[in-house]
């Protein structure tokens, strides 16, 4: 139940975020739905570690985003951005940089490595999703 509520809030946040980038209402709703799916997959697979779960969530977001964009005949970027914004390690990046500023370099370095690993896993998940959908769409 808690997972569903959290995913709904994540969907609301990502839909609102998409709206801030001037997406039309339907695209914002779709971006929000993708954010819901992304957070659901992320939370469900968190037991495997943050990097692996971010990769799986980004893969799910990429696949759903590409399929929806194909159906809507629009680029996938506006839909995917809304979805991945809940996954991007922004707050952790902030905490890492803040640790450097207050002199706690070891903690800062550890966190920053995690930030780059998570960002790389999100990037990888999206690239794999693009590759898979490109192969599928080309066959049709």
């Amino acid at each position, binding site marked *: 139940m808690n997972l569903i509520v*959290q995913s709904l*809030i*994540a969907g*609301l*946040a*990502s839909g*609102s*975020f*998409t*709206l*801030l*980038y*001037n*997406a*039309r209402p339907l*695209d914002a709703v779709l971006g929000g739905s993708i954010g819901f799916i992304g*957070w659901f997959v992320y939370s469900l697979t968190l037991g495997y570690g943050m990097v692996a779960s971010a990769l799986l969530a980004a893969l799910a977001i990429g696949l759903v985003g590409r399929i929806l964009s194909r159906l809507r*005949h*629009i*680029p996938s*970027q*506006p839909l995917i*951005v809304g979805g*991945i*914004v*809940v996954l*991007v*390690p*922004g*707050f952790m*990046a*902030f*905490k890492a*940089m*803040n640790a450097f*500023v*207050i002199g706690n370099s070891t903690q800062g370095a550890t966190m920053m490595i995690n*930030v*780059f690993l998570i*960002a*790389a896993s*999100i*990037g*990888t998940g*999206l*690239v794999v999703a693009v590759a898979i959908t490109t192969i599928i769409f080309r066959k049709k």
Partner: protein
Amino acid sequence: MAEDIGKTLDFMVDTAAALMRTGSPTTRTEIWISRIGNKLGFEVDVAIIYTVIYITIKDSNGNAMTMTKRTGNLSSDFDKFIKIDALVKKFVDGKMNLSGAHSHLNFILNADFSYPIFIRLIAAALACGGFEYILVGGLMSAIASMVLGAMVYAATNYIRLLDNRFFQQFSSGVIIAIGSWILMPIFKGSALNGIISGSIMLFVPGLLITNGFSEISQGSVISGTIKESEALALLVALVFGISVGSVFVGGMKF
């Protein structure tokens, strides 16, 4: 024929700049621009390195022309991006001629499709509150984040002192630090850590970090690396802003 080359190149450069300014990924823009040139029978070489666009086209007689253009600040406007993308598709499919497509592109660029300020503020508040709730937790902190996030969004987007992103990030950090300290006693039960975590989400360049990695992995190494560097600079500005703001309010620990 030389005039045709000139007009085509103008359209290609303007389209590339418009796509990049509205949030198109580098690889996609390069593919579209090549298709426009190929459609008109030109050989095309296009390279986009973050804010700089280089396009060379060559006709069947061997006449070549090159144009370089700086796009300035890159931002995202998904509505315009989708409209320009559809326009390029129409052109490549042969449903529009060159002059018609160029004038339609200018129409899209000059039109204002943005939402009214109150809708944008509500969206900013919902985004900040939602992020706070899922990342840290706590209802009162989420509400305080909504208030502060909307205020800082309005301050940085509508009261622009300088058109400098680094300064905007820095000033956002200062306002967030002071604002969270003021709001914490007003919203009883809220935590400083939570309020800040929600309000900074609109300013943390997490998306830039991720997009940078995507571009590097798709082959646009220079563009991706520059995005990573910019993200780091923006993050430093935000954190320095919060640090300076916290000095005013007596120091904070996260």
